[in-house]
């Protein structure tokens, strides 16, 4: 049975999660990708607090219909590109959840352990299944500066499905699989 996790994502609830567990996540999450991570790591601030929050590595397809934003597709993007920035963002902004695909590196893994953060893997390419869990778009920031794909979208989700692949105890499924597969070459 999947574990349910609801915003705000407190350190206590995060530390209970272990690699291999499935999670259904609900509440507010913030999308952010390359532009936002660089901006934050260079000292930038967001109009919304990221404390006990989740950054979703995602550039959604969003259309404006009848005066409202509607998410048309919203799967994860590759997280490893944010590796140079992620640890600093966790430390400075009190982020407790990262959602993405492909996993991240040693620095993020250590920051997850030190500050109580978890990496949740969504299924790459599953843009329709994941867009279905988005019930509302409650805001958008940096739309003009970063463009619609790189903007910070505030999404309200219900039962967003993902898998713990890096936990707050220093474990990473990605490091394990990489080591096993490389040994077979």
């Amino acid at each position, binding site marked *: 049975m999947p574990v349910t996790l609801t915003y705000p994502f407190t350190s206590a609830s995060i530390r209970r999660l272990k690699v291999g567990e499935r999670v259904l996540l609900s509440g507010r999450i913030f999308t952010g990708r390359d532009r936002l991570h660089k901006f934050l790591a260079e000292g930038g601030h967001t109009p919304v607090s990221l404390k006990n929050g989740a950054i979703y590595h995602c550039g959604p397809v969003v259309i404006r219909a009848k005066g409202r934003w509607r998410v*048309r597709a919203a799967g994860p993007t590759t997280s490893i590109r944010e590796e140079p920035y992620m640890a600093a963002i966790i430390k400075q902004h009190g982020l407790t959840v990262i959602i993405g*695909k492909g996993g991240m590196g040693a620095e993020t893994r250590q920051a997850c352990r030190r500050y109580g953060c978890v990496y949740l893997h969504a299924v790459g390419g599953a843009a329709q299944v994941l867009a279905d869990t988005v019930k509302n778009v409650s805001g958008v920031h940096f739309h003009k500066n970063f463009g619609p794909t790189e903007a910070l979208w505030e999404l309200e989700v219900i039962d967003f499905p993902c898998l713990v692949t890096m936990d707050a105890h220093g474990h990473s499924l990605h490091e394990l699989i990489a080591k096993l597969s490389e040994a077979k070459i």
Partner: protein
Amino acid sequence: MPSTWTKSLLELIRRTSADLPRDVEAALRQARRQEKPQSSARWALDTILANIRLARARNAPLCQDTGTLLFYCAVPFRFDTRRLTAAIHAAVRQATHEGSLRPNTIDPLTGCSCAHNLGAGAPVIHIEFAPRRTVAIRLIMKGGGSENVSTQFSLPDARLKAGRDLEGVRRCMLAAVAQAQGNGCAPGVLGVCIGGDHATGTECAKRQFLRPLNDHASEARLVALERQVLADAQKLGIGPMGFGGATTLLGVKIGALARLPACYFVSVAYMCWAFRRRGVVLDSAGRVVRQLYD
């Protein structure tokens, strides 16, 4: 009113974005059967298969990364290619406007999003002339995650213990799969070119994605190598999304180009599971005569 050409091309873009080809879906179903019940790999494939059905039913993008648009066109001699290019541009513009394509084209100097997904070299349009009456247009949408794990080797490669022979080529291909892990949205497909130069090798590797998954290479040694690498890759255990599991690749497609004595390139293109490939044959008025890949 949009022209018949633009309408047909817009429909091709919509369909490519939303409706995964049957051969790819069948390979994913087969992969699902290989994974243990309750495993993370099985969960990933169940989610993928559910996503394929939803996208098709809604005519909505299968993946939010609608990718690089690669158009491969075969046209009759003396055909006016400017009109075709203009129609492709108009269709891309409309598809972006309606949300079938994400604003996905960035000016590398300003960092700004190019309007309507039209920029220098975007979309990619290959046109070749052939003795034919109709126009065949194949479209591949290739996402950035899979593009980032695509790579090129120059043999010999001491680190991989890869020499200038087919065994060396095999080692390069497996190294590419191991290096990609789940980042290219495994289980994917490899398109490979042995030989050529820096540019033609990569182009030929990508062109392999026009081949259906169940076809065979034209040359017996390539057929054997495709089979061998597919079997070897599964043994790496990377699995769907890199979660670990039985299926790491859905297919391997290899081509070969003549090379210089000094150069021995192995170009490896990776295609994600969301292998969006469609095609249409159009008559001289731009009307759809038939679908390809059905």
